[in-house]
């Protein structure tokens, strides 16, 4: 059996708010015991709403934040046990693409230099001419004219900027990519272009993808497996078809019932299921239970 490329085990991250007048600041459990695997070449969709902890999970996996507890095992090595220096070779193999491509770009840097930067940092750039050729190749891969290398970020549309961010992320030929809401900020007519690009890259480079999103219809389309997060925990996970067709957790059911469908006849007749996340508490002893075929649902301890 194939080993997972990424194994996340019982990841935890707590934020402590500023202490109030009487001490004891508010403790937020942003990520509260999250575990999942990503197989080589696979796309796992991590979905949830604001405050679910999905983006924090992505940042913990990338080592952009340190977990309080838990392990991030990449290709058999526990990254959380490594020093920053010893983690560096792994950084080449895992990259991240952010939601806002403009915030990620340096406005005063030519986009060609921005894409070349990881090559320079990791000392695999070669001569200036070789570097230029490598960046031109990356531009072509993501569907941009290499002539654009000399330009600055403000000269590009949102979709083009996201392509630039992706070109930089794949510059070191990673095996694994975290895509944190990569199409949310883009125009509707551009979203399909970027999703198609992810699929192209996945086929040509064998990339594994952690696709963090709140757009369930896109997750259903793109991902082989899906994990639904609520308040720092995974409440349901499994093969995409199983979770979408046979959702068991009330939160997953509510989420699916709320996705607008671009069809007036179906949209008119539907009923949205209510779910009050604010009032929801995890039942005591809650744990993910396999209901068959790798479809897991969070349930309380059986009475």
């Amino acid at each position, binding site marked *: 059996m194939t080993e997972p490329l990424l194994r996340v085990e019982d990841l935890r991250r707590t934020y402590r708010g500023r202490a109030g007048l009487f001490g004891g600041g508010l403790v937020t459990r942003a990520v509260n015991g999250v575990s999942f695997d990503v197989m080589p070449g696979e796309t796992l969709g991590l979905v949830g*709403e604001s405050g679910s902890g999905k983006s924090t999970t992505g940042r913990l996996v990338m080592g952009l934040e340190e977990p309080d507890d838990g392990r991030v095992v990449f290709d058999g090595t526990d990254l959380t046990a490594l020093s920053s220096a010893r983690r560096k070779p792994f950084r080449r193999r895992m990259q991240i693409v952010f939601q806002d491509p403009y915030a990620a770009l340096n406005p005063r840097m030519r986009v060609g230099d921005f894409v070349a930067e990881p090559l320079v940092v990791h000392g695999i750039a070669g001569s200036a001419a070789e570097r230029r050729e490598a960046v031109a190749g990356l531009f072509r891969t993501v569907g941009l004219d290499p002539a654009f290398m000399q330009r600055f970020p403000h000269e590009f549309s*949102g979709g083009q900027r996201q392509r630039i961010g992706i070109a930089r992320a794949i510059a070191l030929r990673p095996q694994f990519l975290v895509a944190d809401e990569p199409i949310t900020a883009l125009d509707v*007519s551009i979203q*399909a272009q970027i999703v198609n690009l992810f*699929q192209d890259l996945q086929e040509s480079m064998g990339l594994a993808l952690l696709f963090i999103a709140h757009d369930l219809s896109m997750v259903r389309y793109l991902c082989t497996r899906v994990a639904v997060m609520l308040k720092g925990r995974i409440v349901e996970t499994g093969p995409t078809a199983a979770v979408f067709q046979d959702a068991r957790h009330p939160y997953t059911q509510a*989420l699916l019932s*709320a996705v*607008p469908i*671009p069809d007036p006849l179906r949209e008119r007749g539907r009923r949205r299921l209510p779910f009050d996340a*604010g009032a929801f508490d995890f039942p005591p002893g809650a744990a993910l239970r396999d209901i068959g075929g790798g479809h897991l649902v969070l349930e309380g301890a059986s009475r």
Partner: protein
Amino acid sequence: MLEISDLAVGFSREGRFARVIHDLSYSVERGETLGIVGESGSGKSVHALALLGLLPQPPGKVLGGRALFEGEDLLALPESRLRDLRGGRIGVVFQDPMTALNPVLTIGRQIAEPLIRHKGLSMRQALDRAAELLDLVGIRDARRRLPQFPHEFSGGMRQRVMIAIAISCEPALLIADEPTTALDVTVQGQILDLMAGLRERLGMTMIWITHDMGVVAGIADTIQVMYAGRIMERGPVEAVFASPRSAYTWGLLQSLPHGAHPPGGRLRQIPGQPPDMFNLPPGDPFAPRNPFATERCFKEAPPLRQVPGSVPGHVVAAWYDLPAALQAAP
């Protein structure tokens, strides 16, 4: 109820000038919900700001046109009269409730203020009414929440407060610009259900501006698709979704994922980039991205015309015949 004719708006940036709304004409009937769909550069938000007298001038400039609302031309009214209408006969909800609410005033004061100004209520009466309104938009324990400040409300709750303010004076017309875009999908669902209920109860006319075809499918009677400051297609939602006649509308609907993707499959993408308003092509602005564009599309902007054989009011701006082009396509 609202009749807009030949609205033209320009924008200047770094010494350059662009027309961002091209002779826009449409009307909204009493009780109708119009869903306006568009993306960057479509002019969907700019035209609403122009109608409400909220367009920053400069850099924006209303170049011409009329917008008759209950017999008055919104574009010709003095600011004082517009201020009376906004929050009075016309309610407004924007995308980001945090910037629209005053952080240092209590929620109660902010809901009460338009009631005092437009309806002549006393502070005490206005606060009573404010509590009723919070209750109406689904905020529990309303009276206790009146003395609270905006930061004590979640994003979804703040948007409910904005809706409470917008409907406080029982507006004849509600203009909502991406009111649910920043919200979680479950909260969006609650707001959409809430608005449908309020529309029934108050008999409001609504203009709902969004980029989300799914939202329009659920809430609108009429859909109006805008691109580069023009209407590309407009008509009853059932007719337009069942048989779009603009290649842009069709492309938007086709690019959305439906179910699981077949192995090796790809989404049908619209090629190219959104229009650069400072560098618009001549003719039909969508032509460079349209696989079905004819020679004429690149030269001459098409007028909006009734779609032959479709229901009355289904209009499209296209020189090509989309169903025929699709049939001929491989």
